[in-house]
């Protein structure tokens, strides 16, 4: 097996990272099983007994609300391996396997074996595999790692993005509904991850959007062809997290939402009341995050996006609108409408990102080689907190993503100079 450090340099990576099935399997273990992944927002399972089905990498799990919190359980009977819970969502007091009737409680304990006289198994050793779960501002993360670092340590400088999303709500919380749109990409999951903080592609992949859509204010700045006119920036936040930041392009509160600052007076009042007027106005001006949280969460301004790997060349991009709890209904409707522009198989934006990723995957699969990630190397700025900031079109986020990837996939790898 080729070592990761032979495939990843400071400014270059090899295409095999996107197309090799053996590397994909390793990622499912080293990244998705052994580090923190985003699993759900707690508003999806509000009541005791509520459950949803998700995956951690390619492992099916049950996410269930109990009396004391949220559990994430491997969705596999410990008897002979049947999928324990088939429905996508619901409310249950227990999970009974449809193969031989074994019953598990929401903590994963095996509580019943039918025809008990013949059972010789030690029930205490046959509980469901259970992940460590932690939550920040209602965002639920999980890991099957035995000794995970604290969640806040993993989040690092990306924690401010979860705050940024949540603080736009007068109650300090986003909430999501029960419907997700699922967009299938015939491409590798990392192509989606890397696209979230890629500013360079916007004018080219979304050329038809620039030509066809009449949207004042929001995208003017980044659709320019003059390199020195960009005020939006990109950042590598550390720990593989990356972001685009449009805050500098917004002059007024709520420009990000495409409305005038006084459009929702009740909302403004509630926000002033919570944050004080000056801080509230700044929150409402800077707008929501456009941040990728390694390995599978993307806060896409108006949408919550989850990247689900299926196979080395197949990925599902899930999205649902990020509603602001306590905000007026019309404001949340506008968030929904804005999300429809950006996300989904028929959207004005992501539909074209998918086609590019699919072409990229096919081209690399057929024509392997080294990729170039040198852009902006001589003009990036490193902040005191370690965050790398650069021009909107530069590749600091890609470099930051791959350095973290290398550390996770091959702990102790010697970093090779470019």
């Amino acid at each position, binding site marked *: 097996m080729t070592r990761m450090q032979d495939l990843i340099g400071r400014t270059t990576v090899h295409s095999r990272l996107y197309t090799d099935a053996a590397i994909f399997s390793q990622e499912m273990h080293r990244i998705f099983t052994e580090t923190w992944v985003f699993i759900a927002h707690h508003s999806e399972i509000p009541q005791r007994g509520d459950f949803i089905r998700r995956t951690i990498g390619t492992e099916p799990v049950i996410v269930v609300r109990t009396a004391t919190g949220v559990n994430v359980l491997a969705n596999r009977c410990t008897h002979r391996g049947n999928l324990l819970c088939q429905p996508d969502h619901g409310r249950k007091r227990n999970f009974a396997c449809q193969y031989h009737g074994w019953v598990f409680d929401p903590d994963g304990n095996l509580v019943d074996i039918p025809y008990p006289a013949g059972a010789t198994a030690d029930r205490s050793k046959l509980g469901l595999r259970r992940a460590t779960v932690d939550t920040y501002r209602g965002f639920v993360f999980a890991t099957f790692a035995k000794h995970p670092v604290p969640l806040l340590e993993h989040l690092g400088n990306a924690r401010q993005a979860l705050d940024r999303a949540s603080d736009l709500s007068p109650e300090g919380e986003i909430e999501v*509904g029960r419907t997700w*749109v699922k967009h299938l990409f015939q491409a590798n999951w990392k192509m989606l991850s890397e696209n979230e903080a890629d500013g360079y592609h916007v004018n080219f992949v979304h050329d038809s959007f620039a030509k066809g859509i009449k949207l004042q204010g929001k995208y003017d700045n980044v659709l320019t062809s003059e390199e020195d006119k960009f005020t939006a920036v990109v950042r590598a936040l550390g720990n593989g997290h990356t972001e685009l930041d449009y805050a500098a392009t917004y002059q007024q509160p709520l420009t990000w939402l495409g409305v005038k600052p006084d459009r929702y007076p009740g909302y403004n009042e509630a926000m002033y009341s919570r944050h004080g007027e000056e801080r509230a106005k700044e929150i409402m001006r800077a707008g929501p995050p456009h941040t990728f949280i390694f390995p599978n969460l993307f806060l896409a301004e108006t949408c919550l996006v989850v990247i689900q790997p299926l196979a080395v060349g197949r990925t599902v991009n899930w999205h649902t609108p990020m509603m602001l709890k306590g905000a007026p209904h019309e404001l949340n*409707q506008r968030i929904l409408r804005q999300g429809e522009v950006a996300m989904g198989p028929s959207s004005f934006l992501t539909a074209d990102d998918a086609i590019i990723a699919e072409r990229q995957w096919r081209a690399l699969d057929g024509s392997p080689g080294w990729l170039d990630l040198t852009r902006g190397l001589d003009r990036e700025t490193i902040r005191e907190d370690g965050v790398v900031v650069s021009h909107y079109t530069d590749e600091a986020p890609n470099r930051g993503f791959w350095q973290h990837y290398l550390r996770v996939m091959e702990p102790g790898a010697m970093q090779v100079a470019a």
Partner: protein
Amino acid sequence: METLPQAEFQTVQDFIFLEAKYADESRYDEWEALLTDDMMYRVPAGDGHDPSDLAPSIINDNRSRIATRLRQLRTGTRHSQAPISVMRRLISNLTVARHGADEYRAEANFVVYEYQTQSVNQIVTWPGQVQYALRRTAEGLRLCGKTVWLIHRSGPIPTLSFLI
């Protein structure tokens, strides 16, 4: 339910087949000319029965957004339809009923066969049920509503940037 006279049924069916032909052939201008000003074009997601009006859809276009969608397609640089998908759809099990004084409601089963040559170079199939709302106007029948219920709307679907 009263059976529609054959000639009337035929007129509605002819219109539906014409709309399908324009969509198959990506004839954006002619397709757009069939629409009323209050046209709603919907492709629900999930199980399609989320009662919340904040539920996301695959497509949820009022007439203004349809215009934007078509403007984007006409640029020729929408990569997901460049080149344009070659398509043919089959429509069957059509039922038509009068609705008020000058409208019809129709339902049919359909499957679109799309030869996707923008990236995967494969035939992609899109089966479902389509519901039409049609209105008699001075210029003839016009489409004021189209809702498409893909059978796989609750699961992952690939890029859908043609007229379904």
